[in-house]
């Protein structure tokens, strides 16, 4: 059986002007905007319909752990620049540097999840599960879905750091494009957190 070659994985497609993979990831991110958009819309609708938010009184910033969330914001921002540096290292032809920055990106993603684990377990100890009230239902749904995206990013980035690097020897440009696409996804996950953090913790 002859090998099927997917066209325009490296060269730009004549119609779009970009490789198909990049176009695909942007369309995927557009669908992600609608996914998180639906949750943000529901959040606004639920919140505006409540006499007080959080329902038990106090402020979101008093109920949730702002210092830990601020730390996590800094962690994600840092992981965004390490991701850019991983891609830039590919562009500049250095696989060892790519490995270094990609490993840092994955490590920071794990740090984010560990911090989130401490936040969640503290809430569970207090009996503040998603079933507790609308506030915690919204909090766990939105941060949980975002956390799943972090896990997804770790899987993709780990593949690119591990077995995925085989492509580097065969086709550097194709590999660099894959890193760029994974980066676009990763920055989007950072971008979602940039809105989640103030809306859930600070307002």
């Amino acid at each position, binding site marked *: 059986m002859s090998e099927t070659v997917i066209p325009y994985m490296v060269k730009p497609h004549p119609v779009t002007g970009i490789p198909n993979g990049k176009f695909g990831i942007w369309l995927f991110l557009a669908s992600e905007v609608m996914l998180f958009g639906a949750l943000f819309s529901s959040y606004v609708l639920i919140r505006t319909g409540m006499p007080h938010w959080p329902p038990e009184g106090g402020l979101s910033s008093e109920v949730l752990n702002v210092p830990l969330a601020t730390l996590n914001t800094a962690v994600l921002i840092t992981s965004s620049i390490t991701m850019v540096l991983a891609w830039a290292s590919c562009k500049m032809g250095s696989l060892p540097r790519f490995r270094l920055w990609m490993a840092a990106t994955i490590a920071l993603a794990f740090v984010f999840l560990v911090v989130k684990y401490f936040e969640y377990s503290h809430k569970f100890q207090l009996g503040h599960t998603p079933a507790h009230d609308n506030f915690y239902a919204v909090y766990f749904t939105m941060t949980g879905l975002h956390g799943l995206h972090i896990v997804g990013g770790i899987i993709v980035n780990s593949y690119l750091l591990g077995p995925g690097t085989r492509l580097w020897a065969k086709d550097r440009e194709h590999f660099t494009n894959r890193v760029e696409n994974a980066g676009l996804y990763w920055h989007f996950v950072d971008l979602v957190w940039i809105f989640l953090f103030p809306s859930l913790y*600070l307002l």
Partner: protein
Amino acid sequence: MDAAQHEDVSKHMGQYYVVFVALLCLTAITVGVSYLHLARPAAITVALVIATVKAGLVAAVFMHLISERKVIYAVLILTAVFFAVLLLLPNLTTFEHHSGLPGT
């Protein structure tokens, strides 16, 4: 990788670091402002403006939207329109409720 591409990327490295520091500063500002306990409309406006600026920096520089192809802009404009509809349409029901208009 050819030399031109190498040079092209290394030119942008400074920009990446500047955006990184700006994002950290804006995070500190948004947290700092939250401790001022501003009135609700002002607090929401400040937090969302800062978040939008941060998101803009990430999208423009880290995601290279500043120098992207038209087809990506077209996809994103369409997404922004549908996002606005998604956000506003369900919430118009509460607007009607609060304003006493029929339909709720």
